[in-house]
């Protein structure tokens, strides 16, 4: 698993955990007819996953997660979809390269298309 895939997985897992951690979201699921319970197993899976990720990137991810609710953002046409900042051409990774990058505007980890 690459670092990008690891953070994508972590982001999706955090989204799921947010569904059961927030009473407003939980209420909405219940109104639709779903019954969601606590997820101690998913919390453990998150711990296992974060152990495999680079500590430096993880700290940056968690800082953005705490600030914005999402620690990862995609880039389309050089625009960060989190903060709408147009990124400099030099910020783009070489074609075919999948490396983690940081948005200069909002500090979210970037997923280049």
């Amino acid at each position, binding site marked *: 698993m690459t670092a990008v895939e690891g953070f*994508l997985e972590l982001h*999706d*897992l955090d989204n*799921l955990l947010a569904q059961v951690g927030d009473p407003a979201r939980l209420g*909405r699921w219940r109104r*639709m*007819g779903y*019954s969601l*319970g606590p*997820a101690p197993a998913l919390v453990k899976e998150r711990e296992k996953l974060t152990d495999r990720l680079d500590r430096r990137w993880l700290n940056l991810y968690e800082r953005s997660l705490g600030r914005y609710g999402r620690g990862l953002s995609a880039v389309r046409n050089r625009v960060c979809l989190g903060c709408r900042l147009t990124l400099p051409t030099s910020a783009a990774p070489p074609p075919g390269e999948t490396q983690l990058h940081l948005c200069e505007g909002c500090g979210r980890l970037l997923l280049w298309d």
Partner: protein
Amino acid sequence: MAIAEISPLTDTSLDLLELRHRRRESALHQLVQCAFEHQAVRHPELVETSLLRRERLGSTALGRGHAVTGAWSWCVHAPLVLVGVSSRGLDWDVAGGHDVSIVALVLTPGESTEEMHFRRLEAVAGALRLQRQRQRLLDHPDVATLSALLREVPR
């Protein structure tokens, strides 16, 4: 005078498929692979993992005979609703032990808001809530029937 026959445009954000297996995990795998073929998702294995984790939070089966699941993720490129129909029934962890015959997978790109994903899920769940609507789809499993049924789903 020229006469042109105009046929309706195909809605590419919807599709229908026949589910081949009985297990929930296999059905989710088939749905995600179909979404990958539609070029609606990247990293299909991550989407599948996320859907399986969602099942562990609580079954996505709603009432008798149908389930609505979904993902709001950066792994999703384009909004897509896939509906799988199983003539044999699926073992979906439903209270009472009923089999599930219709499964909807609602995929919403990460760039959309979470509110949009909820609205799409609510629209699909609402459209499939009535038994007569589900029966209509089982009797006529085609994209035209599906489009008519899910016309209220926000794109």
